[in-house]
């Protein structure tokens, strides 16, 4: 279920078309269609286990798909033409790993390269620029394993941005953050996205911290997605059709709540006979 026209799909930065993903015989995603335009801030919303991380891995090329296409600038994504930065939910660094933050961030530029060439001054300058952009410049000479959770998150963002990607994927960066910290991270990301002209696809189970900055939402539930603006997607009738059972979308003091019955599961059961979902 999408709200894009064919012309907008063609000009999109990222286009996911008719993607199916199954893992160990279980349907994780079915007929996923959405696109992201350059510079857009898109929320990938869904409950835990809905398939958000799987979808991010599909875009990165780390998860095989059984059907469909994923293209960037109209071309299939390969290891050589990818312009995607990635911030995983958490990376467990060995506390004794003798790698400084600045060296780890620089790996976002040349960590995948073979050869004898030494790191250039331009790369070092870009590293400094990105660490400043994420407000982590004071951490440059610290060991990556000695960072707190919040510090690590900023460093991971710098690492993802240093290659100046067109698209930045973030997997649950707001998980385990208090509301104030979550809004701070969102503000920082929006500032960086605007300055660097990077499109962002950020997965979260709570869309409220993203409401002030989100251009579009891709809502994942029941192995399917609904995409469009918040007003188009986050509606009782749309999400009820997506979940396959009645849910209420309630707005309270500017916050959106999606409420199901007490006995209902927010699940990823695939319902093959469910009719196509249409956003009016």
């Amino acid at each position: 279920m999408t709200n894009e026209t064919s012309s907008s799909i063609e000009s999109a930065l990222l286009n996911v078309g008719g993607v199916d993903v199954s893992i160990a015989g279980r349907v994780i995603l079915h007929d996923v269609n959405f696109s992201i335009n350059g510079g857009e801030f898109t929320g990938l919303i869904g409950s835990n286990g809905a398939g958000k991380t799987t979808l991010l891995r599909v875009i990165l090329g780390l998860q095989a798909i059984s059907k469909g296409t994923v293209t960037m600038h109209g071309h299939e994504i390969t290891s050589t033409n990818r312009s995607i930065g990635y911030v995983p939910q958490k990376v467990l660094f060995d506390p004794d790993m003798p790698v400084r933050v600045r060296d780890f961030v620089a790996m976002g530029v040349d960590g995948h390269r073979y050869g004898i060439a030494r790191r250039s001054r331009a790369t070092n300058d870009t590293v400094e620029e990105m660490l400043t952009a994420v407000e982590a410049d004071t951490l440059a000479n610290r060991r990556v394993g000695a960072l707190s959770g919040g510090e690590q998150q900023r460093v991971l963002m710098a690492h993802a941005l240093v290659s100046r990607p067109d698209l930045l994927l973030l997997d649950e960066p707001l998980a385990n953050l208090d509301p104030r910290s979550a809004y701070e991270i969102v503000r920082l990301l929006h500032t960086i996205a605007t300055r660097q002209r990077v499109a962002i696809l950020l997965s979260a189970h709570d869309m409220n911290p993203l409401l002030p900055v989100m251009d579009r939402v891709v809502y994942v539930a029941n192995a399917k997605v609904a995409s469009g603006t918040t007003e188009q997607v986050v509606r009782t009738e749309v999400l009820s059709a997506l979940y396959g059972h009645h849910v209420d979308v309630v707005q309270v003091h500017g916050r959106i709540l999606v409420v199901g019955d007490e006995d209902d599961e927010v699940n990823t059961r695939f319902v093959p006979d469910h009719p196509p979902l249409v956003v009016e």
Partner: protein
Amino acid sequence: MVSVVSAIVGVFTVLRSQSFAGHALTDVAMAGGAGASLAAVAPLVGFLGGGILGAGAMEAIGMQRVKDRDIATGVVLGAATGLAALFLYLVASSSGATGSTQLVLFGSVFTVEASTLPYVAVLSVLVLLALYLIRRPLLFSSLSTELAAARGVRLRVVGSAFMVMLATAVGLSSIVIGSILSTALLIGPAASALKASRSIARASWLAALFGVAATWLGITCAYDSYYWFPSRRGLPVSFFVVMVVVVEFTVVTVAVALRTRRAASASGPWRAVGGS
């Protein structure tokens, strides 16, 4: 040169948490060395051949996930140890094979044939060059396989290449110090250097220094030990090399602990408690 190669390869072995695999390859090299002795082939061929075959077997079973890695290592280790036991028994049983078992297990730098040296030198240079060429994707994948894969690093290729380098380093050090003790030359200097360093480059240089120091001190002590006892009987080089490695690790561990404690005292108890 062998100690330099072992030490620098050892740095990445420790970083990648593959010390168990490294140790297993020394036992696989032992099987190879014993097989070479049985077949009257040059020991270096046996040590290298066994090690590379073992590395290939581990990769085939699976080395990507930590759990798979332990399983692969354990399976190959068990098989190799069994083969080593068979070959060494056959070697010991055959006439004219006196001392071969001792050489396979514990090596002796004094008995390395001159004809072997050019091969050792060339292989050492090749391993160091190859390691330098893949150092960035290797380090990146050691830090985080997920991030490295997302950035386009071919984990299987890098991992397999490193296993071949590791097997080669183990094979080369088995000539000098024997297969059983080559773990010490692989892991000891690297572990000491990583404790005392804040960068991989510095750790590599320091590990090489520790490795060379251990080897030369070991050789010197072994040579001198001839005069220590009235019986005029020198002690093995391997023993002294391993002891120096242990002393290096102990000294570095204590020095780092003292430095950490001094730094914590200097920053004050309250700041230490509240700091990140």
